């Protein structure tokens, strides 16, 4: 208790406290790992094969016992909890779907609730709902796992992990065995699910792209079970702490890297604005093709095209705007704002959300292109 209260911030969902794991006789598979895993977020363990990701994950639910150190789940030492019960409080998804071949899809999904003593009918009803949640037709519920495609099996694996509504999900390379198209689809759906469910997810992968797509935070493991860097994905891509991380992240990753590049030097142009109150006032005229509608605080609320000025009398009549670009955001955000805006002008706002001007798509493109060329030249130089 005491040591936890001394730490700053909210209680982490999972805390690794000086964890070392040495399988008999060998060198450590995980070496003195200490890290906090945020509640309700996706934390990704990424690194080359054999660097201790699976071992670290499995120590959380005690499928592997650490050689030394403690793991706290919600402040409680997992070593003091009954292994079987602890595991039922966490969903687990693995690479081979691990579905029971002798049980129907529905009964596979209902596994953990059944272990917890939920009556069969109730567990099956819930399982049927979950089929829908993971995007499978309910007719598939009566099939056996062997009758499903690889991608469908992984969806069932996710549904099974969610069945008892555990606060924590452990996922060990869940999408590595499916083809790239299905993988992208599954990643997207995981993010969609996570928006609704806000589980604490620990996700293992060897794929840095997957890690940056999914992770709120990414832990890069190095050979020998060392935690090399633990940070937001943008930071890992932009500022790898050492040669190992830089090498793992890869030099030939121009576009993604750029998309995280700060957009500080994007030019913000002035824009004509009209306040909501002035809409009904016929004496206020507009000169530009597009006028930005703002409230009394200067926050953007859509666009008024010149041609329709007379017929737009309230905020609801205005043409809805696109995404916003806050100064300092990445180039990708700037581009998004410009491309999603009906006027072709991306609305730039300050930190308080007040409109400060607009960015132009063509100019953002140019910056991206220039940065890509710079990067290519730098790579060429190091290669020589």
């Amino acid at each position, binding site marked *: 208790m005491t040591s936890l209260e001394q730490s700053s911030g909210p209680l982490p969902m999972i805390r690794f406290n000086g964890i070392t794991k040495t399988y008999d006789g060998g060198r450590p598979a995980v070496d003195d790992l200490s890290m906090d895993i945020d509640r309700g977020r996706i934390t990704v363990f990424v690194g080359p094969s054999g660097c201790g990701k699976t071992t670290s994950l499995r120590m959380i*639910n005690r499928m592997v016992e650490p050689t030394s150190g403690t793991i706290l789940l919600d402040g409680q030492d997992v070593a003091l909890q009954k292994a079987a019960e602890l595991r*039922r409080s966490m969903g*687990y998804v693995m690479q081979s779907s691990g579905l029971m071949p002798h049980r129907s899809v529905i009964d596979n999904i209902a596994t953990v609730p059944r*272990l917890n003593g939920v009556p069969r009918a109730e567990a099956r009803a819930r399982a049927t709902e979950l089929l829908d949640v993971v995007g499978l037709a309910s007719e598939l519920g009566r099939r056996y796992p062997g009758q499903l495609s690889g991608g469908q099996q992984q969806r069932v694996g996710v549904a099974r992990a969610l069945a008892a509504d555990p606060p924590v999900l452990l996922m060990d390379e869940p999408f590595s065995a499916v083809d790239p198209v299905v993988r992208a689809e599954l990643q997207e759906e995981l993010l969609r699910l996570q928006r609704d469910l806000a589980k604490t997810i620990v996700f293992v992968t060897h794929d840095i792209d997957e890690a940056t797509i999914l992770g709120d935070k990414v832990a890069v493991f190095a050979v020998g079970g060392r935690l090399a860097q633990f940070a937001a994905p943008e930071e890992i891509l932009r500022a790898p702490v050492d040669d190992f991380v830089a090498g793992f992240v890869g030099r030939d990753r121009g576009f993604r890297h750029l998309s995280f590049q700060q957009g500080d030097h994007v030019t913000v142009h002035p824009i004509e604005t009209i306040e909501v109150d002035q809409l009904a006032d016929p004496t206020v005229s507009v000169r530009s093709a597009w006028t930005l509608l703002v409230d009394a605080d200067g926050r953007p609320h859509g666009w008024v095209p010149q041609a329709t000025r007379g017929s737009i009398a309230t905020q609801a009549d205005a043409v809805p705007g696109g995404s916003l670009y806050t100064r300092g955001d990445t180039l990708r955000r700037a581009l998004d704002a410009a491309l999603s805006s009906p006027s072709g002008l991306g609305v730039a706002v300050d930190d308080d959300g007040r409109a400060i001007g607009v960015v132009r798509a063509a100019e953002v493109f140019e910056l991206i292109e220039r940065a890509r060329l710079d990067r290519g030249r730098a790579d060429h130089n190091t290669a020589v």
Partner: protein
Amino acid sequence: MDWVQGIVEYIPANAALLRELTGNHLVQSILPIVFGVLIAVPLAQIARLNQPAGAVMLTASSLLYTIPSLAMFVFLPLVLGTSILSMVNVVVALTIYAVALLMRSTVDALNSIDDGVRQAAVAMGYTPLRRFLTVDLPLSVPVLIAGVRVISVTNISMVSVGALIGVPSLGRLFTDGLTRNYPEQIAVGILVTLLLALVLDLLLVLLERGLTPWTRATPARTARAAALEARTVAA
């Protein structure tokens, strides 16, 4: 032709005797299968969990299998204190053979279960006993029943050996037929024994089908499955 007629006439004339001997024969064949499974399965699991002990147990069971059945039938009453004519001797002897044979095939069956499935069961939070009973065992059924089918056929023929020392079974039709030089009786004995073996085997096949519906669910995707999948992807 007389021969065939002799057989056909023998059956109704000796219906009561045939019924009694068939009953005896079935009891002595089936009980060892049931006991054999009940004993071999837990022993197999113990042998798997405890490697050195397991190796000793498997070797010992192979050795037991080499003891001739007649020797066993004669020897067991001395150990068990049963009458030499008791069916118990045959049941115990055949149970020992069944355990010896089933233990090895059960160990193989349990070892052949996909490791991913086992890991997943652990991760889901199964207790070891529950996992054994509801995951490992059902998945071992095909191999287990293959072993049981071998034992069932072997038992049907081995039970007859007991008749040599006077334990009642269909074997008596052979011993009796031989001393009385009554070939029709021997022929009926062979026919009924054959029939029993076939029926028992058929029942075991049906049992396996009932216990393993998933093995016949075709992985090859039907048009319906493909349509369902297309819908899933579109959704």
